[in-house]
């Protein structure tokens, strides 16, 4: 952000909390079938954890954790996972996004369950990558340099 004073407490707390937010975010993504939550919430929390470190340690130091150039590619990959799940079911004879045609074993409800999991992961990746990228872009070209 602007000028930053290195505060030991802020740095310590944010670095300690950030991994726990990430773990909880992963839980939210993968447990979305059974409880409130899902890809979008989890992805936003992952982005929040990354942004927290960026806020506390400064954008330059946080590059070690999550480089600036990863945001957009990861986000694109997330959308591609979503689209790919739909497209594979299209190639296997169903309509677009018809998970019952996914080439996995088991009865159709199981296919759909798995399909939902795939796209939740895609959504999570996409949201995490792109929100972080937006944050980085907003900070690009700081006034003082």
């Amino acid at each position: 952000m602007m000028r930053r004073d290195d505060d030991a407490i802020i740095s310590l707390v944010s670095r300690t909390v950030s991994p726990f937010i990430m773990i909880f975010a992963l839980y939210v993504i993968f447990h979305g079938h059974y409880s409130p939550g899902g890809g979008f919430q989890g992805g936003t929390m992952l982005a929040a954890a990354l942004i927290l470190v960026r806020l506390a340690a400064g954008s330059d130091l946080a590059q070690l954790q999550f480089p600036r150039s990863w945001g957009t590619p990861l986000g694109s990959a997330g959308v591609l996972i979503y689209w790919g799940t739909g497209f594979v079911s299209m190639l296997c004879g169903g309509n677009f996004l018809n998970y019952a045609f996914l080439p996995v074993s088991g009865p159709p409800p199981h296919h759909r369950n798995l399909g939902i999991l795939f796209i939740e992961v895609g959504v999570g990746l996409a949201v995490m990558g792109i929100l972080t990228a937006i944050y980085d872009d907003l900070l690009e070209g700081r006034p003082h340099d």
Partner: protein
Amino acid sequence: MHWELEVVLFVFLVGAALVALESRNLLTAVVSLSVFSFLSALLYAAMGAVDVGFTEAVVGGGVSGILFVVTIFRTSRKSKD
């Protein structure tokens, strides 16, 4: 759905919205907007929409607020109305 809880939250929401709109200091306005978002997340949960409440709490109270504050820091903090 519990109407007593909802009415209280609605009143707070209107207050937060007014502060956000009328404050001359944009930072106050933005923080007030975050409060607004968080209260609305509570309201969604009170209405039974836990998923939406969760999302709004994470997005409105968290990431969107941060992005807005970043914007304020990159631009100006004062407003004439």
